């Protein structure tokens, strides 16, 4: 039934950048369900900033494809959530509007870049939320906040209206407290859209099924090796043990391309970002450039004042990596590396149905703990492979370490999102 819901959250974690109070909704599968939207997803008549000063005050004249789908199923779009500026970060500290705090421990980050969406769900302010995942930005905060998050197969969810950061890697995806909620939200947002040239006609009509007897799970040694907190590894190993008790078998495997996957990821995403973010110059939206000045000067003034440090750093890294004389060393090599990552997954998936390991190498770190950019980048080591390969991956809470949530990551074959949802659901049912 169509109607209006009252939304007055006590936002102690700075999860929302904008929210409504009396929010109307239609009827359908999500009638009256409060859904929060990451602020890089375009919402008609609702300010959309990507947590950047350069889009402060920008009110889109159209809806992203996924927003239209949510509205058609009756969802109440209650607000826009905080994030790392343009999705660039793994902690939601890189927001121009202050960091989001982790509801499990407010001295820690919620993960990122969809930290606001994850915190809003974890704190019970909304039942479900949309995020986007370029190199782990849904799975990382899901893991750190103790909720479920799915990065769909590349192409299953339309990116029309997602403000682009790195087109070849990013997907919009659902976050929720339970796998069932995540699956329901996925069923609403997946499907073909002619406005996204990478869209695939692969709708998702699935009800989670906990029967995993006979499932073969690959356990990559790299996911329990150097750089991964042994205590986190132990929690995840116990969770995989539960899956074995349910009738799954495990097979050791290896992803040798993990050695350079993170470098390939950062070269690719910064190159794409340097091109994508060229559009922010204050002319069509954003802070006004001085039209009396020569254009380089005018744009530099706007962009140096309104982009945050990490955004400028990534634009510069991408500009450098694409510049004459360096293209072959960085971008071209990164694309070969990316093909190798894909080949590694294809080889492993000939023998196993899914691959499991930790989502993140550690539990949520403390605010300001990772002030060095490279140390922050290294936190993405276990999530970027799925983006490079385009395959689906889900994070489901599987216990605690140091009193903080740990996420079990399950990766699947291309377009087998349903299967990884089933595995997550089976685990969730076994422990609840």
């Amino acid at each position, binding site marked *: 039934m169509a109607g209006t819901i009252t939304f007055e959250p006590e936002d102690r974690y700075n999860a929302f950048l904008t929210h409504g109070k009396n929010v109307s909704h239609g009827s359908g599968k999500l009638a009256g369900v409060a859904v929060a939207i990451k602020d890089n997803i375009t919402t008609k008549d609702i300010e959309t900033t990507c947590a950047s000063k350069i889009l402060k*005050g*920008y*009110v889109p*004249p159209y809806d992203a494809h996924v927003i239209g789908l949510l509205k058609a199923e009756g969802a109440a779009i209650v607000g826009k959530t905080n994030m790392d500026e343009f999705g660039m970060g793994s902690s939601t500290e890189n927001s121009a509007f202050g960091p989001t705090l982790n509801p499990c421990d407010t001295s820690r980050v919620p993960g990122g870049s969809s930290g606001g969406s994850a915190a809003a769900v974890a704190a019970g302010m909304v039942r479900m939320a949309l995020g986007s995942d370029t190199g782990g930005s849904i799975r990382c905060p899901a893991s750190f906040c103790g909720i479920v998050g799915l990065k769909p197969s590349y192409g299953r969810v339309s990116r029309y209206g997602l403000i682009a950061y790195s087109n070849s890697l990013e997907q919009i995806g659902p976050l929720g407290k339970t796998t069932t909620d995540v699956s329901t939200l996925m069923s609403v947002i997946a499907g073909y859209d002619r406005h996204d*040239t990478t869209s695939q006609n692969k709708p998702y009509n699935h009800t989670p099924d906990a029967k995993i007897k006979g499932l073969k799970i690959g356990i990559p040694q790299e996911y329990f090796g150097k750089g991964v907190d042994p205590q986190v590894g132990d929690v995840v190993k116990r969770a995989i043990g539960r899956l074995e008790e349910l009738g799954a078998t495990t097979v050791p495997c290896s992803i040798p391309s993990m*050695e*350079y996957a993170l*470098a*390939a990821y*950062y*070269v690719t995403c910064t190159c794409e970002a*340097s091109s994508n973010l060229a559009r922010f*110059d204050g*002319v*069509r*939206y*954003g*802070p*006004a*450039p*001085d*039209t*009396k*000045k*020569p*254009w*380089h*000067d*005018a*744009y*530099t003034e706007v*962009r*140096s004042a309104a*982009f945050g440090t990490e955004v*400028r*750093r990534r*634009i*510069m*890294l991408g*500009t*450098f*990596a694409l*510049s004459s004389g360096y293209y*072959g*060393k*960085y*971008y*071209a*090599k*990164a*694309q*070969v*590396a*990316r*093909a*190798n990552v894909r080949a590694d997954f294809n080889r492993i998936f000939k023998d196993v149905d899914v691959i499991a390991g930790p989502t993140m190498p550690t539990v949520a770190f403390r605010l300001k703990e990772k002030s*060095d*950019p*490279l140390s922050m*980048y290294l936190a993405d080591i276990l999530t970027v492979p799925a983006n490079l390969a385009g395959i689906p991956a889900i994070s489901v809470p599987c216990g605690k370490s140091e009193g903080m949530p740990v996420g079990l990551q399950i990766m699947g074959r291309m377009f087998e999102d349903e299967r990884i949802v089933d595995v997550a659901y089976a685990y969730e049912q076994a422990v609840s």
Partner: protein
Amino acid sequence: MVTENDVQHIADLADVGIGGEELGTFTHQFNAILEYFDILDRVEGSGEVTRDLYNILREDEVEPSLSQEEVLRNAPATEDGFIKAPRVM
């Protein structure tokens, strides 16, 4: 190794600006990140990646679109239905 001059040049190319203490910090961080990227030297092969991917293009058909008013709504400076931009010449 990139120098402060290199970083200044990249900042100029990208129109993002840099200056003062930031130049030294950025140069230092840039070098640490680029050193990490050097691991890509171990990847064999050049840029010719064969992919089983192809472009999907559609006909460019005229459809109802946003009104001029909606398109101009977010522009900070407009004149006679146009968007004002800095001079290029």
